[in-house]
């Protein structure tokens, strides 16, 4: 074995360049309006339609070392939070360019690392002022106000279309209303929806006569950062599976923001408002999430009776059932377990309907040859037949008979199996009035175990009376008209029992290629709400936090010249190195480069959401706001004031005859901040890397053109 070693950053930093180019592919996924991509496999001519970072990376060739590190970072973010991957990918690109820019300007690598890392830390501390506490959102849940009730104005797939607006009240921050067309965002139904960004070219805000929100007063309040976090043990079979079920205590410490202009409290105590804010324009998905939460809440209220345990949104008890080929409008949420079974079960279901059935739950496969994990089958055992008795039944037949005997003995008519089920067994069971369903999700199994008293077993031989669950109802699920469902040639059934803590979200799409996207988008919304409720606080969204970071970094960069060493002492690990004393010299450059990353983020966001016709235009627009923020003396107060204006309601008669409340836009906190950190960590890790060591590679395995730049030991 020969080791090859390649120096990767002689003149240009190859690693950073690779990162930039990988990240560039996901640029259009930033923000609420995501342009889909077709990925075409040139060899087999297959193509997939994707519109998320995770699906993109699944389709890219990331076998290079840097590509793998990128994939690892994105996967880690996705596995932990299920959200924030597009932000992560974009910032990886923006900050690799920033780091490269610093290298060009001659800043030593160690200084770039220290200043960028501490600069981001400083940003994270700064944006605490934009946190909004969430209070008792479930207290008013019984009221008639629901998400679907107010959700009249948007049932389109792509709600953000830009059309010029010829009217509108003049806003003081609208800097060039003559030079460029004023833009507003419209849904397909022609009614304006709010662009999920703080800084819009024109605020199409309307008077607040709607009673759905409590008259909201504004205040900058910030919460002491809470350290409750979800923990996952890796290398674990158990801890990875479900989210930590710990309910987070409501934080109670408030801090007045210094220099805040408005002395009111900004808080969120309405579930619908929170959901609207977190939907980021995807109202269809959030509407389903809202219904799922309400069902869980109702169920919990009934189960608890008088007990006053706070309600907890348990995302692990939500299950999605995808029905491609069914029109969009049939998406819905139902209690219990809805699944698709083959048409051959029709008669059986009819017979089982309207009577409680008994259930058993099998953890593994239900096949003759299945053995539990860790069991090694001996291969060298032959069975000797003593006499010449001809075995009439194969061993499979013997096993099947045994299973049927057990089912009959315990009077079981429903078997839910986590793994695969023997086809032969399913057929035999249909004839003896037993429904066997395979590939059942583990959380569904768990929900049935809790609600019916069944105990999950691995083998059919383990079944005893204690393992059997009671009171399950099986029925046809007829929410979708039979002519629609017949077209796709399946039957949908619902299985439930009293008090089961399980909600099925049925997702439909007429276009099969969009099914995956639809499901991904539902989960994105669900996880956003889940994290927000866990943390009991959210950020003001729509670019507010990123804008504050940008503005804060620019101010920091300006300060360092005057205060010199005082500001940045201790920013470098190694305080005795000359780099510590040279820090003041390079610090503004590095901070500005880091800030440019945020600038690119915001302008791409604006461009993607079609608020601006070009990134340049967006950039100018942001510059103007930055100037305003600087002039105001306190960027965070400036941002809160801008929000105040949006929420105080300005009547704009030309846009719509309808009066609408423009809801706030929120972002989740920890997943967002972690995405920033992961992005910067990856960039700095690659920045500090100077060579790639390839083990186990012979001279012969490298093509001659590749050997260039390699050294062999």
């Amino acid at each position, binding site marked *: 074995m020969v080791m090859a070693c390649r120096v990767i950053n002689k003149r240009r930093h190859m690693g950073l360049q690779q990162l930039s180019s990988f990240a560039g592919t996901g640029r259009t996924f930033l923000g609420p309006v995501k342009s889909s991509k077709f990925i075409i496999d040139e060899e087999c001519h297959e193509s997939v339609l994707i519109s998320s970072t995770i699906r993109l990376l699944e389709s890219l060739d990331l076998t290079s070392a840097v590509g793998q590190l990128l994939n690892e970072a994105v996967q880690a973010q996705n596995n932990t939070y299920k959200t924030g991957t597009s932000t992560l990918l974009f910032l990886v690109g923006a900050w690799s360019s920033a780091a490269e820019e610093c290298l060009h300007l001659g800043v030593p690598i160690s200084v770039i690392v220290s200043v960028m890392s501490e600069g981001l830390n400083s940003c994270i501390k700064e944006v605490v002022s934009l946190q909004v506490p969430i209070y008792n959102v479930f207290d008013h849940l019984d009221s008639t106000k629901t998400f679907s009730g107010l959700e009249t104005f948007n049932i389109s797939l792509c709600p953000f279309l830009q059309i010029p607006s010829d009217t509108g009240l003049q806003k003081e921050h609208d800097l060039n209303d003559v030079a460029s067309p004023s833009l507003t965002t419209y849904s397909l139904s022609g009614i304006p929806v709010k662009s999920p960004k703080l800084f819009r070219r024109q605020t199409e805000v309307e008077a607040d006569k709607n009673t759905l929100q409590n008259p909201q007063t504004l205040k900058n309040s910030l919460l002491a950062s809470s350290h409750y976090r979800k*923990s996952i043990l*890796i290398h674990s079979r158990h801890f990875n599976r479900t989210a930590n079920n710990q309910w987070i205590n409501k934080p109670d410490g408030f801090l007045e923001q210094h220099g805040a202009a408005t002395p009111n409290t900004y808080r969120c105590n309405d579930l619908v408002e929170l959901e609207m804010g977190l939907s980021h324009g995807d109202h269809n998905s959030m509407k389903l999430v809202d219904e799922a939460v309400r069902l869980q809440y109702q169920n919990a209220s009934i189960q608890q009776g008088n007990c006053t345990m706070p309600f907890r949104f348990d995302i692990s008890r939500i299950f999605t059932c995808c029905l491609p080929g069914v029109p969009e409008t049939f998406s819905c949420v139902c209690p219990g377990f809805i699944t698709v079974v083959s048409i051959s079960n029709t008669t059986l279901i009819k017979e089982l309907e309207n009577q409680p059935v008994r259930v058993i739950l099998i953890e593994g496969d239900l096949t003759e040859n299945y053995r539990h994990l860790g069991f090694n089958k001996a291969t060298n055992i032959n069975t000797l037949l003593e006499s010449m008795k001809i075995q009439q039944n194969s061993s499979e037949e013997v096993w099947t008979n045994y299973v049927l005997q057990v089912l009959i003995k315990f009077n079981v008519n429903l078997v839910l199996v986590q793994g695969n089920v023997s086809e032969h067994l399913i057929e035999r069971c249909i004839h003896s009035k037993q429904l066997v369903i395979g590939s059942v999700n583990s959380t569904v199994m768990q929900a049935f175990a809790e609600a019916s008293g069944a105990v999950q077993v691995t083998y059919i031989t383990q079944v005893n009376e204690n393992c059997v669950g009671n009171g399950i109802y099986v029925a046809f699920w007829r929410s979708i008209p039979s002519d629609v469902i017949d077209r796709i040639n399946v039957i949908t059934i619902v299985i439930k029992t009293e008090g089961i803590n399980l909600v099925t979200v049925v997702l439909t799409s007429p276009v099969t290629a969009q099914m995956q996207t639809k499901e991904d988008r539902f989960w994105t919304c669900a996880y956003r709400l889940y994290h927000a409720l866990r943390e009991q606080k959210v950020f003001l969204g729509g670019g507010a936090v990123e804008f504050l970071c940008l503005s804060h970094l620019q101010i920091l960069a300006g300060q360092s010249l005057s205060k010199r060493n005082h500001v940045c002492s201790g920013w470098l690990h190694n305080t*005795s190195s000359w780099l510590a004393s040279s820090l003041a010299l390079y610090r503004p450059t590095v901070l500005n480069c880091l800030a440019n990353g945020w600038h690119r983020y915001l302008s791409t966001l604006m461009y993607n959401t079609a608020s601006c016709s070009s990134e340049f235009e967006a950039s100018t627009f942001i510059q103007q706001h930055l100037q305003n923020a600087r002039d105001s003396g306190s960027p965070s107060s400036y941002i809160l004031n801008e929000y105040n204006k949006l929420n105080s309601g300005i009547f704009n008669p030309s846009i719509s005859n309808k009066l609408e409340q423009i809801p706030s836009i929120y972002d989740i906190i920890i997943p967002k901040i972690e995405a920033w950190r992961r992005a910067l960590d990856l960039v700095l*890790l690659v920045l*500090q890397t100077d060579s790639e060591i390839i083990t186990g590679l012979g001279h012969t395995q490298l093509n001659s053109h590749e050997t260039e730049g390699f050294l062999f030991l």
Partner: protein
Amino acid sequence: MSRLEAKKPSLCKSEPLTSERVRATLCVLKGILTSSYGPSGRLKQVHSGFGGCVCTTSQSSALLSNLPVTHPILKILTTSMQNHVSCFRDCGLFTAILCCNLIENVQRTGLTPTTVTKLNQHLLSLCTSYLKSESCGCRILVDFSSPQTLLCLVRSIVTSKPACMLTREERDHLSALILRAFLLTIPENTKDRLILGNSIIVPLKGQRVLDSSVLPGILIEMSEIQLMKILPIKKSEAFKVALFCASLSGDLSDTGEGTMVVTYGVSLENAVLEQLLSLGRQLVSDHVDLVVCQKVIHPSLKQFLSMHRVIAIDRVGVALMEPLSKVTATICSLLLCNRNDTAWDELKLTCQTALHVLQLTIKEPCVLLGGGCTETHLAAYIRHKTCNEPESILKDDGCTQTELQLSTEAFCSALESVAGSLEHDGGEVLTDMKYGHFWSAHAEAPSIVNWPDLLSRCGCGLYNSQEELHWSFLKSTRHPFVPQTYLPHEATGSADNLTLDCFTAKLSGLQVAVETANLILDLSYVIEDKN
């Protein structure tokens, strides 16, 4: 039919070190090592080239174990470094770089291997006896009544691993945590011999480094469902535990070669399961409360045990078996968090190194000044010693004064180059003429500079530039001077942010480097069996 083939003759090369290829590969190896050295060292992406995980590291233990070098000379070098690292965990790069420097410098002197070997041995013993002596000016005795020195030592180790990707706050938190974990492994009541316990590192993913923590005892994971069943635990007295390292999965462990013939109707699986269940009955009748198995427990046995209110936990893994078997000793679990896998791996190695260094420091309660200061100070001391008292060496060996001078220069500049390898950003490296400590400065400094303003502190952080000091570039020649010996106690007591090195590991590293260099320099022939 067998065929006889004549054996190929062995290949014999003389003077292997003079070969251009050997020099070139040594140079590449040295480049990899020096560029990785210290807190601002550059990282290496180590991977197989066939996909699979990418390890980003600058640590010797990760680098050396992944370098499958081919040439015998490089093999000697890497093997002896790996031996050092496996015993001491720390100072691996120091050792390897010093060894490469020595080989390179000695080759330039043109002295015969015999002379060099002898003289190097003498210089080495001068070093070790100085480092061990009371008068040593770069050694601090550890004061166990305060955590300061030990904390500095741990922090220096953590700081020197940039691939952990820690911020300052995270580094301080983790250093304190490592020290706490170590203290938890010291038993409270010891009679004559101190037997240290274990700290088990438990990986936690998805959390911030600041969420890492230390818990006394052993942390075992189990499924939430299982946990719900056994809670709340009402038993007040101690648990009776049965620990199995054998698999209880119910398979036939080893049927050997050949075929086993079984009569029809006999089920081996059922027979084994029956055995397992009778084991279960025994456990129940012995009133065992908790059954822990390294491998898998058969689901039926688990079901049986849980019916009898015995907690069964399987697949705990081999790593936990030893600590579990001595659970009465002092054991703690260090829950370690980091954002991505590659940084977590690096952090784990770092924690293991730091914990090991603390153990070494308990045995030999002193530390060396770090940040390059020990190396430059030692070099100044040796230069002064051989210049002023050459007789003690010369009379034993029959070497000439010139040979001694050449050899000393090679040795001392090898040491100084190691210190100089800490600089990766093109800065200037200097030493002061009073303490012989290591300093760094901006390279583009104006020609007439006020050094005290340009410099801040020496490498270890003990002295600052505002004292009346004189500096000299490390590369330039200078008159031998006596570096100040006997470190004043108050100087070290007050400083709370020193960079420190492990005494035992560094001393051993010095010896290993010199001896390996001597061995390689002395090689006359490489004989390769070509068959």
